[in-house]
């Protein structure tokens, strides 16, 4: 006679319990963001493992610098490169601010926004999952990097901090399929929501009226809606406008200005939000 509780049925029961637990965890984490503390605790505990993993890369880059035998020069070059990145970012934002300022001058009585504080950070690793566009930067809570901070590069917007740990932070790139960003067209001030599609070289604007005035070559910038990103940060360049016959909505495909796959230095905007 077959036993009521065979080994296979015990394993099946364990599987059912494990699957139920996992599905519940996925649901809670993805819908309610209630497990951020757990994520932070695990990531903090993983810090030594990550440091060991980064060690070969750091050693090789150190050796490369040492082989050049120009320690001081290389150090100085690094500082200049960082400074240059910062200045290029500031220049980009300044151009947009000038345009905005001219418009505001016409309207009169609108307070100008000048407050900003940028923190340089280095990208330590990219998520190995091809569908998750997240990077880990080497600045965290101890440097003042908190959840929701915008992250930019010399070319434009990169993404935003989603989880911050003591020594590091996870940045969700704007190309991630779960990222939504309020943008506007620099030329026409037409507003839209840019969504990531899971490709490093593409974001999309969806559900726009068929008559929308957007053409390939237009630049997209943050609109400032949602109070997360300052207005005017360059985001992407429009590559294609798809108007399907008989469809009420147009779809716009744009390429991020920041080369996400080749990114190594970024800046975290630590400015307190005011407008």
């Amino acid at each position, binding site marked *: 006679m077959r036993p009521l509780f065979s080994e296979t049925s015990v394993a099946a029961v364990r599987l059912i319990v*494990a699957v139920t*637990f996992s599905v519940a965890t*996925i649901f809670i984490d993805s819908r309610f963001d209630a497990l951020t503390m757990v994520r932070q605790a695990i990531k903090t505990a993983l810090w030594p493992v990550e440091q060991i993993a980064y060690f070969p890369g750091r050693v090789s880059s150190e050796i490369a610098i040492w082989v050049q035998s120009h320690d001081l020069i290389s150090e100085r070059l690094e500082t200049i490169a960082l400074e240059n990145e910062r200045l290029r970012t500031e220049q980009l934002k300044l151009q947009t601010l000038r345009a905005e300022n001219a418009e505001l001058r016409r309207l009169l009585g609108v307070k100008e926004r000048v407050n900003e504080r940028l923190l340089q950070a280095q990208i330590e*690793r990219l998520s*190995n999952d091809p569908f998750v566009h997240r990077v880990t930067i080497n600045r965290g809570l101890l440097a003042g990097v908190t959840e929701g901070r915008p992250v930019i590069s010399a070319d434009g917007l990169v993404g935003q901090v989603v989880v911050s740990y003591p020594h590091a932070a996870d940045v969700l790139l704007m190309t991630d399929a779960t990222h939504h960003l309020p943008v506007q067209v620099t030329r026409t001030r037409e507003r839209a929501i840019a969504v990531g599609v899971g490709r490093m070289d593409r974001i999309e604007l969806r559900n726009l009226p068929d008559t929308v005035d957007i053409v390939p070559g237009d630049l997209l910038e943050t609109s400032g809606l949602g109070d997360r990103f300052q207005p005017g940060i360059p985001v992407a360049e429009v590559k294609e406008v798809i108007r399907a016959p008989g469809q009420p909505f147009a779809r716009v495909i744009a390429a991020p200005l920041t080369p996400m*796959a080749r990114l190594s230095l970024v800046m975290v905007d630590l400015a307190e939000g005011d407008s």
Partner: protein
Amino acid sequence: MIFLATWLVTLLLIALPYPAWMMLVLPHFGFLFVTWWGLMRNYQLSMTLLLISSLPIDVLYGTSLGLHGLLFALIAYALTLLGPSVRQVNWVRQSLAVFVVLLIASAVSYWARTLTGQSPEFLILVLQAVVSALVWSPLRWLYDSLADSVQGLGTQRQ
């Protein structure tokens, strides 16, 4: 101890910073870790331990917590059932069996990711399963050697 050693090696393999172009051709080290335990040491494998060990892997990959727990449980269960017959065959057939199991796990992963708002491409998941199956034999050798070393150390202490 063997579980801890193999798990730490897996975490290291996942945490290594790989260039962006390698993302599509990287094996899933987490799946291969569970494959080894499901095939070679399933009599020592605890589902609770597996679920707990999957959480740091979720954090390293940046996926929703619980996703790898779900997939690990399915892979471990499937391989526990298949274990005795798959262990006996040569490495090519073993890799094929691993591929089939990982393909099923990929299908579940696709479903779970879609529900959490990601837009995965199934072909990329299939490619990951293919690469993982190809890497299975060398990684099995690595885990076997590691387990032997840890076991040897334990015996020496006694």
